[in-house]
């Protein structure tokens, strides 16, 4: 099948149309877990899984979903996958599951998943929708991973739980607390918009 649309979808989601910094969507549930890199990775895996499969399912069913209640159907499909993610995390990584708390369940209301289902999966065949789900999931994940990397590094002098900055480093404890993430994301958006997007515009 045509490979180029899939490739285009990936490039769009990772770059210009990135759900986080271009559309500022879906940052609700997952910002809370970016204080430690490990939790973020688990969360992102769960998110990519859910986005891809729910996109796929919605797309498979798109001809049978009555348009009046489509939101409800989408939410139910998403919720079923999130339950799978929740049970798997609970069974295999009980510690992380406790730290993540309600945020795994909150993947359901992550606007990105709903947004992709609504904007893409309802009007495209299953294969491409699946790719779109993975792409937007990854586009979201890498931003979170970058943020988590810096927050853990600055906030606790460690990466992946291993101390790297040594004894002399004074932890910026504000980074692992709530306000840190707002500043971090703001700086990130600033850099991306100021540097990367501007270059692209000049080229175009």
């Amino acid at each position, binding site marked *: 099948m045509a490979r180029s649309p899939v490739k285009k979808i990936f490039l769009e989601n990772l770059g210009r149309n990135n759900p986080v910094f271009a559309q*500022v969507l879906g940052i*609700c*549930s997952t910002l809370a877990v970016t204080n430690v890199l490990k939790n973020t990775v688990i969360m992102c895996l769960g998110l990519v899984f859910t986005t891809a499969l729910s996109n796929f399912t919605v797309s498979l069913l798109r001809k049978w979903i009555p348009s009046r209640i489509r939101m409800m159907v989408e939410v139910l499909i998403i919720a079923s996958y999130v339950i799978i993610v929740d049970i798997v995390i609970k069974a295999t990584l009980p510690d992380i599951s406790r730290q993540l708390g309600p945020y795994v369940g*909150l993947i*359901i*209301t992550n606007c990105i998943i709903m947004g992709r289902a609504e904007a893409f999966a309802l009007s495209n065949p299953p294969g491409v929708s699946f790719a779109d789900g993975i792409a937007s999931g990854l586009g979201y994940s890498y931003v979170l991973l970058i943020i988590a990397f810096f927050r853990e590094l600055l906030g606790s002098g460690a990466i992946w739980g291993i101390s790297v900055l040594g004894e002399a480093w004074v932890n910026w404890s504000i980074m692992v607390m709530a306000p840190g993430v707002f500043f971090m994301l*703001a700086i990130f958006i600033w850099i991306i*918009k100021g*540097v990367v997007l501007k270059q692209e515009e000049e080229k175009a």
Partner: protein
Amino acid sequence: MSEKAGLFAIFFSAVFTQNILLTYYLGMCSFLAVSRQVKTSLGLGMAVVFVMTFTSGLNWLVFYHILEPLELQYLRFIVFIVVIAAFVQIVEMIIERASDALYAALGIFLPLITVNCAILGVSLFMIIREQGFWESVAYGFGSGVGWMLAILAMAGIRQKMARSRVPGGLEGAGITLVIAGIMALAFMGLSGVI
């Protein structure tokens, strides 16, 4: 008496020290999108307070009286979201019939609320904290008021800033996040109170 003090403490901490938006980041999407004007923020805020208070109570009843006896706790995500959606739908219909003024003020915001993560978040937190019924209602009400407070403050600041000059890439989402960060710092200052 002590129980009343407990309820008040839950309410107070949900409004200020553990503000659902500024410490748990819930409801960020609508917070960033709708906080341009005080008037619309007030409408959305009131709708959130209303829905949150009632759904936290409803979900408590559903969880402890239906799901737990049947050992279906793992279905809670689906059930909670259905309860919230159904509640919102019913309220919308009632308001539409009962009062035009109220419908004009709240009506358009109600559908938005179904997918507001803060509403589902409150219900999930309530289960994790193993609160009782009235505690959950107090927590839901407090979280709603806290959310409204945050979005009103943000809308006020953004309206004042409408004509200020902001560095290129920071316009829009960027500067809003910076303000949210500073607000979160301010709210953290209250954490010594309780």
